């Protein structure tokens, strides 16, 4: 069977997804999504924002109260079995059977997709090899480290070579080393195999590094979307921060306000902040203006806006705070 990947067809389309849980909890409040084939799409948001609910609907586990979606060209409500054949799902919880070996887990999973006999055995062995589990293949999964279990989870999601892969918080709970490994594996899947990947995460850096397109979810709605760079540049440039060594802060602010490249100048104690479209180019002008007024700078730092700033702007609250609230709200 050959698979054709068109550059600009969308692998995932969702419109107007609404999902309410008993007790009037509105988990999704009208979510629209388009994910182009062969791209990594990041669904970023704090705990309880609606990321997992969206994934459950797109993977046919759950049904929306309103709206619809198609994955790999098939309608998730009308043709759930066809969708299931086309997708791989790596859930938030470990989906591995702790009493079975890695190989046994893969064989059972493969049989669910219609693989049999020698083909099934060969695929299981290949998966173990590829995810660095060959030497642990016949050990029970309960003896695996967290990183090994997570790799097996991904191997299970890929055994039938799906067109679209869903990764629900793939690195939550992993130590930094295992996280870096997982990131490498996801990048490899996207680059070398051209697989469409929908990834949910509540790590801003993870979304920034892996996803070519992002949607920020907050309280069941998508509040912003675009490439990570687009979203960041909507914040109008970089932040220049100047620590004053001594002297008059007010005079320094007045001096900076005359620099055309710097905007939104604010003074906070002995710290001056300004925004600039291109921070690197603006720094010499800023320093020259200060020097002209006899003001010494102790330190100058330049910061690209982070997704944290993006989140703050669109959701109107800091990510950390929303995350904690969401954690308390979800049982």
């Amino acid at each position, binding site marked *: 069977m050959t698979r054709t990947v068109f550059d600009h067809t969308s692998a995932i389309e969702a419109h107007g997804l609404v999902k309410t849980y008993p007790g009037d909890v509105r988990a999704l409040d009208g979510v629209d999504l388009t994910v182009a084939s062969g791209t990594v799409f990041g669904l970023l948001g704090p705990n309880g924002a609606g990321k997992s609910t969206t994934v*459950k609907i797109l*993977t*046919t*586990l*759950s*049904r929306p109260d309103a709206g619809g979606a198609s994955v790999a060209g098939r309608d998730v409500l009308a043709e759930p*079995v066809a969708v*299931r*054949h086309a*997708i791989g*799902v790596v*859930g*938030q*919880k*470990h*989906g*591995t*059977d*702790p*009493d*079975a070996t890695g190989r*046994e887990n893969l*064989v*059972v*999973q493969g*049989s*669910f*997709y*219609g693989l*049999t006999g020698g083909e099934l055995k060969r695929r299981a062995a290949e998966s173990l090899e590829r995810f660095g589990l060959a030497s642990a293949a016949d050990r*029970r999964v309960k003896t695996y480290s967290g990183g090994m279990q997570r790799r097996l989870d991904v191997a*299970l999601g890929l055994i039938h070579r799906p067109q679209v892969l869903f990764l629900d918080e793939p690195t939550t709970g992993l130590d930094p080393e295992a996280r870096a490994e997982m990131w490498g594996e996801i990048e490899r899947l996207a680059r070398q195999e051209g697989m469409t990947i929908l990834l949910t995460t509540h790590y801003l850096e993870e979304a920034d590094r892996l996803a070519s397109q992002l949607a920020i979810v907050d309280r069941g709605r998508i509040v912003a979307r675009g490439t990570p760079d687009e979203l960041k540049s909507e914040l109008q440039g970089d932040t220049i921060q100047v620590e004053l060594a001594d002297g008059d802060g007010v005079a320094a602010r007045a001096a900076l306000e005359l620099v055309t490249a710097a905007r939104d100048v604010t003074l906070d104690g002995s710290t001056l902040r300004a925004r600039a479209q291109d921070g690197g180019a603006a720094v010499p002008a800023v320093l020259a203006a200060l020097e002209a007024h006899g003001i010494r700078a102790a330190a100058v730092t330049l910061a690209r806006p982070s997704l944290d700033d993006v989140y703050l702007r669109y959701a109107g609250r800091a990510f950390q705070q929303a995350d904690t609230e969401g954690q308390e709200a979800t049982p």
Partner: protein
Amino acid sequence: MTPLLQTWQVTLRYLRVIARQPAFLGIALVQPIIWLLLFGALFKAVTQIPGFQGSSYVDYLTPGVVVMLAVSSAGWTGMGFIEDINSGVMDRMLASPVWRGALNLGSVAQAVIQILVQTVLIVLLALALGAHYANGLGGVLILMLVAALLGAAFASLSNGLAVLARQRETLIGAVTLVLLPLTFLSSALMQESLVPGWISTVATFNPVNWAVEAGRSATLSEIDWGLVAGRVGLLAGLVLLSTWFATRAFGTYQRSL
């Protein structure tokens, strides 16, 4: 072919879980022995009650213990599904195109295999205690058949309940609530002629009693083929109904996700 292979893989999965827990395996093997010896000693005097037909309580008790053990082993089958729901394995399986029936039937097959092993154990032990099977191997095979059917029905019920309730406590409560009344509202331990009339009326509708009557008819004296066929038919009907219920439960579970 694929649904069968999938069912077999699920069966293997649950058999492995059992086989790799030596404590569970030990308990499952010791339990039949304890039950047979304990009930045998406890109710030995029953044969002295005027009106008791036959003279050997071991002969009488063996089919009763087989059936009691079948329904009790089967009742706990749903615990596996609750483990799977909590670990995330259930959601992974349901996101795959696996035939839903295979998930239930695989688990039921594991329960039935366990029950058959336990039944063989009881039958052999009773033989060592001097039991006498009036219809030889054929009668014992019928006893095994009804134990398997009853076990399959209750395993499916347990699975369906587990998927709907999703909570260990609910399943434990339900099984404990149902198990003893089902056993005592049957002729598993006591001849029907010796129990109050209302119990014997209730027993008519009790699947455990269907299995006990058929099993006893097959092992105790000359086989009443009409009775055996009727009870096997009822049990088979119950298996179909409970299998349908358990398979449907996955849909209800998914709607609540």
